[in-house]
């Protein structure tokens, strides 16, 4: 069984897994990192959105072998100890979450967007394709704008 070494939320980890095992299952089932959620397995719902070297990816379609030697950040790694990331703070301020299942992915997608664009337009926000089945989209939009203000 091949062995893969990479960093998860600042900690170096090694897992024994087939090369093509999706990173999502390496994280959830082998490493117990369960913030990223399964919602479709084919990069459609984007509930598992996490960062690979700072870029948003969907671990459900990233083979674990591709993570080797790189830095994986999941929702658990976003806050600095007890100090939340400004995007998480904005999510609390707007009381975005209903069932909450998609929100780790929504937040990771928003963080990646704000990294690319400090002042995202409504059209930029429209491009986030993560599904929220509770339909919280308007609060997500308001939270991203609030986070942009916080980070300005």
């Amino acid at each position, binding site marked *: 069984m091949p062995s893969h070494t990479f960093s998860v939320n600042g900690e170096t980890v090694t897992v024994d*897994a*087939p090369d093509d*095992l*999706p990173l*999502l*299952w*390496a994280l*959830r*089932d*082998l490493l*117990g990192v*369960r*913030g*990223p*959620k*399964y*919602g*479709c*397995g*084919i990069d*459609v*719902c984007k*509930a598992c959105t996490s960062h690979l070297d700072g870029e948003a990816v969907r671990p459900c379609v990233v083979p674990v072998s591709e993570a080797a030697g790189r830095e994986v950040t*999941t*929702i*658990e790694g*976003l*806050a600095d100890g007890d100090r*939340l990331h400004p995007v*998480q703070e904005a*999510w*609390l301020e707007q*009381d*975005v*979450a*209903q*069932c*909450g*299942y*998609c*929100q*780790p992915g929504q*937040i990771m997608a928003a963080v990646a967007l704000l990294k690319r664009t400090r002042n995202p337009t*409504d059209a930029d*926000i*429209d*491009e986030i*394709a*993560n*599904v*929220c*089945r*509770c*339909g*919280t*989209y*308007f*609060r*997500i*939009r308001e939270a991203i704008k609030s986070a942009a203000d916080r980070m300005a």
Partner: protein
Amino acid sequence: MTRHARRRFLTYLVAAPSLAVATKIGLDAYAPGNADAAIPTPPAPADLVDLGDLLILAGKPTANMLVLSVNEDGDVHFRLPREEVGQGLTTAVAMLVAEELDTPLDRVHIQLDDARPELLLNQLTGSSNSIRSLYDPVRHTAAAARARMVGAAADRWGLKARELTVRAGVVVASDGRTASYGSLSAAAASLEPVALTVTPKKESEHILVGTPTSRIDARALVTGKHAYTLDLDVPGAKPCMVRRPPTVNGTVKAVNNESAVRAMPGVLDVVTLDTGVAVVAETFGQALDAKEALDVTWGPGTVDALSDDDIRARLKAATPSLDVLGVLVKKVEAEFDFAFASHAPMETNSAVADVRADRAEIWSGLKSPIAAQAAIAKAVGLPVSEVTVHVVQSGGSFGRRLFHDAALEAAVVSKKSGRAVRLMWSRIDDMRHGRMRPATHHRVRATYAAGQVLTFQHQVAAVETDFRHGLGDAVTAAAADLPTGIGNATFAQTLFLTTVKSPYNFGVTTQALTEVPLKMHTGSWRSVYSANTRGAEEIVVDELAAKLGKDPVAFRRAFLKTARQRAVLDKVAAAGDWGRSLPGGWAQGVGFHEEYKSCTACLVEIDATDPKKPRVTKAVIAADVGRVINPRGLEAQLLGGLTDAISTTLRAGLHIDRGLPLEGSYSQFHYARQKDSPRDVKIFVIEGADEPGGAGELGVPAAVGAVANAYARATGTRPRSFPVNFDVDFTPFPR
């Protein structure tokens, strides 16, 4: 007394204080806004006693068997016999408890109760009924706890209870002495039970209740710390997935390559079920690969020959004809079709099960856990008392988690495999073999003369909705309290008549349901019959207004029955600048709905310059749900209802093709994304009086009407089939 029991104080009330249920509303409440404008319509059955009233009544004998404890650290723990699926119930209940106890909200912890069969008919989450059914019992329980705390302090200090006050979880005497709840909890536990004359605070004294409050679990949700069913650490529980048949309800005839699949990496076991073939493996990735590799010979399902066209034809044929009218009678007539719709909660159907020879433990998102416990006990051959069913807060429901199919499968696999399992449905299976809102056909006719509506008839035909999840027992238990007018209706008709009603004075009004029994996986979908039934009626209302030469808002205003109804309509018309001029291809639309003692209006603007790609650009919603516990949570529910309506009216539905839904993921079932959602949403909560009404489903039907009416006006069409854009614009996954 055990050590554990000594450390805290419990209140466990069995006797019920008087609860007001089934308030009768007389005709006098229904005086039309303008006496000349409308022919009064007598109250419908749902105006007198609605489904929520029946559930409250059925649950009444056990309504006050609530468990609240105060620990020595002063933390308050309340066990909630309901499910949290995102509707914000735990926050609202924590607010009620904190209010009555005069203790900070962050000291109140809500734990979802395990299945408690002794609660009989009082552990079902549905019909927008949780706050309605819990509002009084929770307040009485917390008020009794507060009285015991104060009583313990009074004993300690030799003072009278009435000389004491409570501030932030601390009992304070007039001479300045203080005692925290934590320091009093042991003494309070040994007090004689407080007499049930303890009454909750007057509502005018509420400080926290009624104030916009953020979710108590928000931080856990945004940090990834909240544990859903499959995030739980159950020792030894292995991932499990099920290969399912190519058609709905197909059966397993033979597994042709079991030994090859058992030899695949990580595979631990292969178990044949009634519903498919389960694979247990070290990771979900391996379970998924292995279940895909299975070669199974399948038996037929229950609707293999049926596709959408056949089902629609059957529904249409089953819809009773309306009376023959004279040729001179002026009328508006319309027929509507609504497609099947998936519940599609983000968290797919899932459960953890650990079944041993003498006991079983189950974890799952369950809205009817007592029914689940009974079914699981039977399936694994254990007494109910040995089956512990934990209710886990879950990732959405919309009606889906009334059913316990994943928990049942997990229990059977665990028993047969001899190990604990974590069972997860794939998204494709969740959409194709999961539950769905039944397709419906509607025949509506209104007649009018001299500016008045004389009659309003609506015949609905629906594929049978599966209600076999414990709701039937509750409704049957309360059947003696059904109002007249329902008579010997079938169970489904009873549900229809206790949930659907017309809010208008349209003269003689009839609404009726006919079911077409097809063995498919149907279930209640947020607002059950009302999204389609009332949505269709709101479209007809717009067409009636046009025939009578009236503006849609002015027309509704004239025919609504009460001032309370008109207030929400007026609010959206004013705040939404009704009638403002918009570019070509854009339009406003309005809808109104009333259910479970609440009412709402919705105004939207739509950009349908490309009729194939319409976008709702703005929404204004107003609601009066009576007493509001948490306005912020209520607004969230209305926002969700709006998104559901935008989705199912414009694009989201399931196509049935030879016994199976074609859609298998969100790339195919087009639930709205950010780009489909309005950039401008305003929600107004109009504070009502009296008891709380239902709010969880309220938002959908009005918004269906508003979106459909806006689309009709923007495009100059008369939409009759929903969703309006419903092409098979994808390549289906293999069966």
